[in-house]
């Protein structure tokens, strides 16, 4: 697009905003409230997720015991299967000797010497990247002939899976509902801007302006509403979270064990990205619906 066209689109978008400034400010405010509500939900969910990850990390280890008589090739075969599994995030190998040494400390040296150092099977401690995959993984390992036993806490997995599912489900529904509300509001603002610019659009069409040139200022205006709403929400949410973090950090663990908040810098980065993306996409989508309905060629 020629620079003069870009200038035209920018100037027209600005004029549209000035012409409907009350409506524009109202839209930004409502988008801001919507994004903030989503942000509060997001901050809560991120912290729940952050802590549930920390708490369950230890519980979510799966121990795969290889048959005691397994030779080096068998061990390598099992290791290959684990390495090639896309959901395996981490593997730690415990040899028969290491298991023997560890058990000596637990049950006593005499007993273990009687049983012999090859009595205990070698094992792999596996971490998965997706808790919902645990049952499938365990069934796959048990089905292998050279696996002696697979130990894991199915209850912990199910709980983790359920929490993870609930978080996604709640987050999805809330984001969806708030998104629809924002879309409606932005679309309504653009609809009114379109109706106040109807004469101008008619003349543009008579003169031979392309549809892209006619519609671009309205898309830009929607995107700008979303962008400004996102920026304001980010500033409010960022300051708010920083305040809460400063007040609660340190004192939180006194009351609720090992709980800790997501660090401010990490939270701000996520909020900035999500708010911007959400705001701008919503703005442009809102414009799209209004333009499709009220600016037919």
């Amino acid at each position: 697009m020629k620079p003069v066209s870009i200038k035209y689109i920018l100037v027209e978008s600005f004029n549209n905003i000035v012409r409907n400034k009350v409506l524009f400010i109202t839209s930004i405010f409502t988008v801001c409230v919507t994004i903030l509500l989503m942000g509060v939900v997001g901050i809560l969910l991120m912290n729940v997720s952050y802590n549930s990850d920390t708490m369950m990390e230890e519980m979510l280890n799966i121990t795969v015991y290889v048959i005691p008589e397994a030779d080096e090739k068998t061990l390598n075969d099992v290791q290959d299967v684990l390495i090639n599994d896309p959901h395996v995030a981490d593997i730690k190998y415990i040899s028969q000797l290491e298991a023997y040494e560890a058990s000596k400390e637990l049950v006593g040296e005499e007993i273990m010497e009687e049983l012999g150092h090859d009595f205990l099977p070698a094992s792999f401690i596996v971490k998965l990247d997706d808790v919902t995959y645990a049952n499938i993984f365990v069934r796959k390992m048990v089905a292998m002939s050279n696996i002696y036993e697979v130990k894991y806490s199915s209850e912990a997995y199910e709980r983790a899976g359920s929490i993870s599912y609930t978080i996604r489900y709640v987050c999805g529904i809330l984001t969806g509902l708030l998104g629809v509300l924002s879309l409606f509001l932005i679309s309504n603002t653009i609809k009114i801007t379109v109706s106040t610019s109807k004469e101008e659009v008619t003349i543009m069409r008579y003169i031979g302006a392309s549809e892209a040139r006619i519609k671009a200022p309205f898309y830009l205006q929607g995107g700008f509403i979303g962008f400004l709403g996102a920026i304001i929400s980010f500033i409010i949410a960022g300051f708010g979270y920083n305040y809460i973090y400063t007040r609660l950090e340190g004192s939180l663990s006194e009351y609720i064990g090992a709980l800790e908040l997501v660090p401010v810098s990490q939270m701000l980065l996520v909020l900035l990205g999500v708010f911007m993306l959400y705001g701008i996409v919503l703005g442009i989508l809102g414009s799209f619906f209004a333009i499709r309905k009220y600016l037919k060629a």
Partner: protein
Amino acid sequence: MIDFNNVSMIYKSGTEALHAVNFHIDPGEFVFITGKSGSGKSTIIKLLMREERQTSGDIFVNGYDLFNLSRYDLPHYRRRLGVVFQDCRLLMNKTVYQNIEFAMEIIGESNRTIKQVVPKLLHMVDLEGKEKSFPDELAGGEQARVALARAIANAPDILIADEPTGNLDPKTSVEIVDLLYKVNQLGTTVLVVTHDTRIVDRLQQRVIRLQGGKIASDTEGSIYENEACEY
């Protein structure tokens, strides 16, 4: 340049606005289209602007087959037309200069060209010194001049004027028609839809007279000496 071949137009309501209309307009011609209300004058403009598509027959303008004109080609086609509406349709929130600039800006003309052309147009329509005025600060004739300047800003091949003197007093009407004639003398094909007998008589150009959606006559010079009372 403009070819109407057996063009008929029946609106969705069932009204037949044009019936088997045939005419040809050469480049550089000045043509009046006249007729009573409901004779089909406005329909011809709508078809030329491609606001409507004919029910049957063919229309060719500047090499474009209007019935089969794609949505992509429509803006390109319209850029070669200039239109002056009876109500001028100026943008009230823009100054005289900005109204003309707007027409050039939206088809992507460079700032440099705009700055060169707009003053020349203002000089041509005798509106120098009114650049910063808003349309509601202008008299009817001045508004018509702005509309004319905007219509020719992109140097169209064809200028269509729909009742350009409809709301003007006789003296101003003459001034506007003289301007239209001046544009024609510079090489633009001009098509004026009017029922104003004075301006038709003044210019003595080709007149296509419509009656009930059909061409009643297609003559050179005035046709009103004996029929003025009809209008």
